[in-house]
């Protein structure tokens, strides 16, 4: 079955203690099991869930996963002794698997599986009404893609087994797979040109950030706060910086995020400010503010020149590889920035130069292929003691901590306080929990900063395509 994010609220309202019918005992502390995919968006969603469960005094457990092979028999068949287990939540996992067969919930008739998956295609069997304890959470039920999936699932469920899974697609009888793709034509339709699907099913477009969906749930039940909002912003931004969504899809949620930022941070200003003007007002300033961010990697922690030279957007659009960065030099000259100024750390740049940079780059950038050099983003303050971080800075830092081997930080002399609770065989678990610790708003900023420092060192290698040996496989 499926449900909207608003209907997901019902889950929290019903997650109270209940009675063990067999022993007539009242069971307190209902528990929830979360299976979280190893990506930044899912980890941010998991962190928001942890905060929500903490506020509601619910017991949770989290297991990191990369694929279905990380599930063992005890995951797929919860023990009958675990009577307090009320729900399983799958984050960025499970949408494409027939969950009715994957899980054996015969000993838990009241257990419900919720799936928030924005990266895998949806297996239509999970949407069947007969799977009454599997819920696919859809962010916008009325969107054309979701309506299409719902209709395909309903027609496929109606077709059932008796018609050998034949369906009407575009007026012709075809056999479809579990994702509604035509894979074989019925013999009467053999002369009709119907494109058949080959290869594994893929999602046409990446769904919206599940961290954002989880935050929406939190705000619906009035349990949202600034930390959760920041996690949602990071999750959403991580999809953009890792090219899973484009700028148009990214901008669709900006209106909602702006309203939340203004609401939770008592901001009256309607205008966004430029990145270099984002400075905290006092030593305890922990606000989130709205900024115009450059489409350059880690510009707030680097020189302007290095950031533009090593950002995928500018590198590709200005064809810096072919012309040996001559275009970049020309652009900076046109803007009125000398080489010496461009080699200064961006936060330390001359104020007048920085003020004019945003306007000039918007004017001159399109001549060099940079049509959208700026985009709407957010920045979080940590008082005076720590530098402020933009959402893209945080996203880059977390992506680096999640995907890089520990040896990369040793080789490049960047001190990172990696989690080292697990051996080499499970080193990806160390990375997963390092990211979780970096997301802690009280203690994780230094770890996040070291992730950013590591990214700065590795970014030139990424641009040149030579950093494969440092990735965790």
């Amino acid at each position, binding site marked *: 079955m499926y449900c909207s994010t608003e209907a997901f609220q019902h889950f929290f309202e019903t997650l109270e203690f209940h009675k063990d019918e067999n022993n007539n005992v009242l069971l307190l502390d209902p528990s929830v099991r979360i299976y979280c995919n190893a990506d930044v968006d899912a980890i941010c969603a998991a962190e928001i869930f942890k905060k929500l469960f903490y506020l509601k005094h619910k017991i949770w457990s989290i297991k990191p996963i990369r694929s279905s092979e990380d599930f063992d028999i005890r995951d797929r068949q919860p023990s009958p002794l675990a009577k*307090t287990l009320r729900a399983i939540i799958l984050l960025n996992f499970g949408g494409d698997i027939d969950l009715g067969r994957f899980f054996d919930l015969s000993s838990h008739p009241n257990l419900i599986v919720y799936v928030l998956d924005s990266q895998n295609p949806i297996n239509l069997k999970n949407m069947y009404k007969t799977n009454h304890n599997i819920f696919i959470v859809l962010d916008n039920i009325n969107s054309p893609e979701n309506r299409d999936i719902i209709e395909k699932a309903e027609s496929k469920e109606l077709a059932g087994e008796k018609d050998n899974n034949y369906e009407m697609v575009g007026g012709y009888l075809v056999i479809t797979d579990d994702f509604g793709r035509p894979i074989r034509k019925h013999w009467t339709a053999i002369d009709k040109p119907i494109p058949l699907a080959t290869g594994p099913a893929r999602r046409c477009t990446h769904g919206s950030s599940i961290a954002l969906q989880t935050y929406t749930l939190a705000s619906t039940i009035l349990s949202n706060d600034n930390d959760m909002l920041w996690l949602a912003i990071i999750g959403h931004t991580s999809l953009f910086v890792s090219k899973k969504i484009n700028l148009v899809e990214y901008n669709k949620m900006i209106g909602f995020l702006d309203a939340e930022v203004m609401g939770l941070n008592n901001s009256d200003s309607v205008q966004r400010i430029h990145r270099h003007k984002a400075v905290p007002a006092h030593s305890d300033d922990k606000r989130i503010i709205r900024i115009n961010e450059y489409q350059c990697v880690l510009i707030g922690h680097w020189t302007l020149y290095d950031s533009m030279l090593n950002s995928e957007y500018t590198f590709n659009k200005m064809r810096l590889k072919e012309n040996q960065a001559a275009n970049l030099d020309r652009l900076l000259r046109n803007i009125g920035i000398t080489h010496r100024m461009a080699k200064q750390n961006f936060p330390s740049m001359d104020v007048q130069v920085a003020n004019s940079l945003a306007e000039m780059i918007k004017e001159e950038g399109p001549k060099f292929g940079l049509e959208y050099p700026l985009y709407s983003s957010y920045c979080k303050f940590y008082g005076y003691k720590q530098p402020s971080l933009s959402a893209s800075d945080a996203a880059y830092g977390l992506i680096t901590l999640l995907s890089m081997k520990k040896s990369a930080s040793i080789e490049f002399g960047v001190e990172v306080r990696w989690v080292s*609770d697990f051996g080499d065989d499970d080193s990806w678990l160390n990375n997963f929990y390092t990211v979780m610790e970096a997301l802690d708003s009280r203690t994780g900023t230094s770890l996040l900063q070291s992730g950013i420092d590591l990214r700065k060192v590795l970014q030139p290698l990424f641009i040149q395509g030579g950093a494969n040996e440092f990735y965790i496989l």
Partner: protein
Amino acid sequence: MFGETAVPLIDTTKRTRKTQSVSLYEGEKVREILDEISILQEHLESLNDQGLNDQGLNDQGLNDINSPEYETKLLIQLVQNHDLKVLKLYHSQRSEKIKFIAIQELPLSQEMRLKLSERERIFHSKYSDLLRKYKCEYPPSLNLSATLVPPKEALTAVRVLKDIGDLMTLNGYVEFRKGTQAIVRKADPTIEKLIKLGYLKLVGNKESTIINPL
């Protein structure tokens, strides 16, 4: 020179004063000091055999304060006392740490066993038995080995470092699988024990609730 034999042991005691783990037993140094004490005792007895009273200073020798025999005896007894104090200090520091291990119900690993002397192992075993008999008199819910620092929160997050399986806790039935993170009650004796044994690790907790000398 007499008295210098104890200096290395004093250094060791000073150095390990603030460490939480028990260091390797310095049997060699202890034997040297004991040898020194027995040599000094022989000297003392030989002085007594030369005509002075065994009671030493309480004798006419006390009145003869300037006699060289008196000075020698005093010096010998000072050095002996000093050596005995060093030995007592060294052993008492070690026995406090061993008692702590026994109170916390921490298991004695093979590595730790090799660091203790034979008598210390016997001491640990007998002390643990004594504690166990004492604790038997009280209900299991009264955890006498619990930390004296009260928890600031009822629930805490733990990370499972090794596969434990399924256990009954105060939260009910919990599956502890390697690599997972879960929220549990901090005051649960089962959870405390698993943390001490190294199966679970407290997460995001700045205060160190249990000092593990292992």
